């Protein structure tokens, strides 16, 4: 069964139509990349999947493991295993990483009927996952994303992904703002988290990332629609020719 099935999804914000009929199916264990020009609606799609209330879905539907995803509250989606790595992670001054992660993790465990982790086990887990994306353990005693560098914020997203073990992870431009080494580390982290019951939707502008995280499919979003899908070689074509040839072809069709 597909883990994610998006049918004819339309969404708008403030009277402005952004998504204009998105169709996308992701099977369990697959990695799908979404590319596309600025403003085409990639982050909007990610936000709608994660449950941002500012966006109004005007048509279409989304099935997550066969359930109606759009009916669920954002926290319910998270507990059901949907994870969004934000393009712009939010700073939460005064909310310690430690407390934030403990609460998030224990919510998940409670939902699954498991006991909360002991302080020791939690700490161990946190250390392991931080090491996994080479995140400075010092950051754990700081407030969430507060004063983190751009790269640290991105790593922090993947770190949380590792902690929370979702079944569908949506990565919104996690690669932008990372230096070459960090990109490598983050990509290695994602690869190590790949499993046959965990799927990824990776939004990116750069083919480079897809050299490391080899996708099963690449989709191109233009003006609120997926206008072309293909294998990993599509990303290479885009890198070479830009988006214009797709736009032209789409119009021609």
């Amino acid at each position, binding site marked *: 069964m597909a883990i994610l099935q998006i049918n004819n999804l339309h969404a708008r914000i403030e009277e402005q139509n952004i998504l204009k009929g998105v169709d996308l199916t992701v099977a369990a264990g697959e990695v799908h990349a979404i590319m596309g020009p600025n403003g085409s609606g990639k982050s909007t799609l990610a936000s709608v999947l994660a449950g941002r209330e500012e966006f109004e879905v005007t048509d279409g539907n989304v099935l997550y493991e066969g359930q109606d995803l759009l009916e669920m509250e954002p926290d319910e989606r998270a507990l059901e295993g949907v994870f969004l790595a934000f393009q712009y992670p939010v700073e939460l001054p005064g909310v310690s990483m430690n407390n934030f992660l403990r609460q998030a993790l224990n919510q998940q465990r409670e*939902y699954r009927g498991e006991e909360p982790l002991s302080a020791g086990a939690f700490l161990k887990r946190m250390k392991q996952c931080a090491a996994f994306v080479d995140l400075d353990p010092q950051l754990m005693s700081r407030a969430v994303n507060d004063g983190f560098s751009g790269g640290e914020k991105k790593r922090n997203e993947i770190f949380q992904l590792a902690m929370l073990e979702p079944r569908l992870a949506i990565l919104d431009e996690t690669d932008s703002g990372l230096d070459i080494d960090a990109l490598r580390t983050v990509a290695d982290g994602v690869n190590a988290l790949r499993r046959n019951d965990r799927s990824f939707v990776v939004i990116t502008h750069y083919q480079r990332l897809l050299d490391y995280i080899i996708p099963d499919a690449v989709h191109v979003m233009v003006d609120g629609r997926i206008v072309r899908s293909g294998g990993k070689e599509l990303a290479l074509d885009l890198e070479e020719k830009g988006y214009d040839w797709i736009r032209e072809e789409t119009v021609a069709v």
Partner: protein
Amino acid sequence: MSNSDKTTSLEASFVDAFEAYAGKPPPANAPMPVNGLAPLNAMQGFRRQAMERFRELGIPSRKNEAWKYTHIPEALARGFAVFTGGSIPDPGAAETAQCALAGLDAHIVVLVNGRFASEHSLIGNLPEGVAIGGLGTAASTHPDILRNHFGRYASWEEESFTALNTAFASDGLFVYVPKGKVIEKPIHVINLQKTNERLFLQPRHLLVFEGNTQAKIIDTSCALTGDATFTNAVTETFVGERAMVEMYLVQDPGNDHAVVSTTHVYQDAASTFTAATVTFTGAVVRNNLNVLPNAPHCETHLYGLFLPSGATQVDNRTLVDHAQPDCVSNELYKGVLNDRASGVFNGKVFVRQDAQRINAFQENKTIVLTNEATMNAKPELEIYADDVKCSHGATTGQLDPEALFYLRSRGMTKQQAQGMLLHAFAGDILNRISIEPLRRMLDERVTRLFGE
């Protein structure tokens, strides 16, 4: 009945009470050392003048700009008997004990209805010359201190509630720390309210910290009463040269109790004064905090946290009057308003003409959780000197939806996410509280309040 008629009758009831009080000595059978009028000779001279002044100034109504958002006549309309001593129900040791702070080793001063209750207080050992106790007793044990400080800082000529308090003043907290003494443990003042009728209470506190002294004061309220009270408290604080004083006021008496708390602080050269006022409940809570750094190189830190719900009104007014150069003042008040609660922050900072090289910062941030809650913020800076660094700002808004969504996307419920963000918001003030058992108690109270 028109509003002004009502006000007049309210004032008349205080005048009547004053005549009855001033005309007679304290009851002989009073269980507490009431020390009515006689021992307070230092102030006897202006008791009647103060009452006269109160009669002229009147109970401030909403027409008075400074009291526009604090509905005093409405709060008083319930009818309160002015407490002038008489018999006080004994709160009992067990009841009193629950008002202490867990894990706090302190000099404990218990005031019952504003009167010093020696049998419930646990003052303990004090450095030589230091006095902690009741103001009534101090009138006879420390007449010089009263003569030099009582009525010097709180202006009964200008403030109606101070005039009223001064007219009736007879007891409250008295702290005297002579030159060079350091009080290691905090002084914890527990204000117990215990009554079977609606009482108007008027504690009067005098705190004198001479040069090179150090002390920390915690003032908490603890309502054991079944009936409502209205407290009109006045505190005068003298902070001597290079003295370092911290004052924490925790207001959580329950929503049946109204409070007007007026504090005047006089700072001498190079002294440091820090105050934090934390308000949870109260029918109406009005805090007037006035600081006069009247010599160079003073430092003043004023913090506030107000978290009212229900229909509680919290009105915080501060005044820092920089009359002298080379001082620093720093003020941060934060609020979270729930339900129909209302908040006011009015912070005045004056920098007088010769007060050069002043650094004065003031900030107020409020989060409004409902459409019915209202906030009025008015930071005021008046600068007459030219070489100063001053800033002020006030923001009122909702919780950041981006932050809420971020937390919810990690599995936190709306309630949890909100609680976490509010707790972080309040933490900014709580983390400045240097007495750990107090900080912990407040932190737990905040956690319970926001249901994290």
